[in-house]
């Protein structure tokens, strides 16, 4: 995730990282990593990124922060991550809408 400040809303952090912030720490499934309680409804990336093993970059000139994923398995389990992206005919398309059919996702690029 990229932000202009190291303090980000908890909801935004949860949506972008998949971690849920609970009183006992950052949780994903049955795994919880203890963290200092967030100050209000914001979380400070500087204090949580390292504890979650996620790299945090700061480009002072650009005024941006970027937090990468944590090292480890690309996916936990075989469930295909869902996503919603814009379709060329207009509107958004959600992968999960094809549940019940076999799907080939074909990533391509103009480059």
């Amino acid at each position: 995730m990229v932000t202009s400040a190291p303090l980000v809303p908890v909801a935004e952090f949860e949506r972008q990282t998949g971690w849920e912030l609970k009183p006992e720490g950052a949780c994903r499934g049955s795994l919880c990593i203890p963290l200092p309680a967030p100050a209000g409804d914001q979380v400070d990336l500087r204090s949580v990124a390292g504890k979650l093993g996620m790299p945090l970059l700061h480009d002072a000139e650009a005024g941006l922060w970027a937090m990468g994923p944590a090292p480890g398995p690309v996916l936990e389990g075989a469930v295909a991550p869902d996503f919603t992206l814009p379709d060329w005919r207009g509107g958004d398309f959600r992968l999960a809408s094809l549940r019940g059919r076999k799907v080939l996702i074909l990533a391509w690029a103009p480059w």
Partner: protein
Amino acid sequence: MWRELRDELKDRGFEVVTVALETRGWKEARRWIDAAQPEHPSLLDATHLLGELYGIVNVPTGVWIDEQGLLVRPPEPAFPGRPAFLDQPLPDTVNPRLRGVLTEARKLNMEGDRYAAALRDWVAQGADSPYALGPEEVARRLGERSPEACRAAAHFELAQNLEGEAAVVHFKEAHRLQPRNWAYKRQAWSLVDRTQAPNAIYPTGWLEEVRALGAEFYYPPLEFEPEQR
């Protein structure tokens, strides 16, 4: 290119979703899509989200998902056949760089006919197809993100939010940290020069790097030994 295969299989509980990984957005992707007029969902991924979610590092890459939403083949090179233009003789007027690119492209692992045959088999047989992998094998093939790849992802995302020299610094760092991520390289190169030739910003381009690597290593060979789940 996928139209024929999709038309053949679409009434058997199968769908294709094409996703364009392109930082520049519709204005680049659109030309190709307008020409193809696809009937399947044709999506734009302007932030390389699929790279992040699925570990996709080059294109074209295919991923198979079954009726329950489970991955049964993780990312791998996906061609519906061998592109016909590759084997056409080149006219003498072709410039040396394009000639070089096509010469290397002919050596790439594509195996489109095998891929299409495997896809047909899976659509016909479902979980009984030897090409549909079980969860342990899917996890093994997906592998792990290294600490370097995680840092590279952060640099690449940052770069996509910047322009000019400010972006280049982070693109280059992503390339250094994860040199086999061709999506990071080709995207960044193409932002400077569509032909991905060497220039003052990037001293090597696609042709130079593929020659250095050996074209046969650019796309990994398909792992198609029949395996039962």
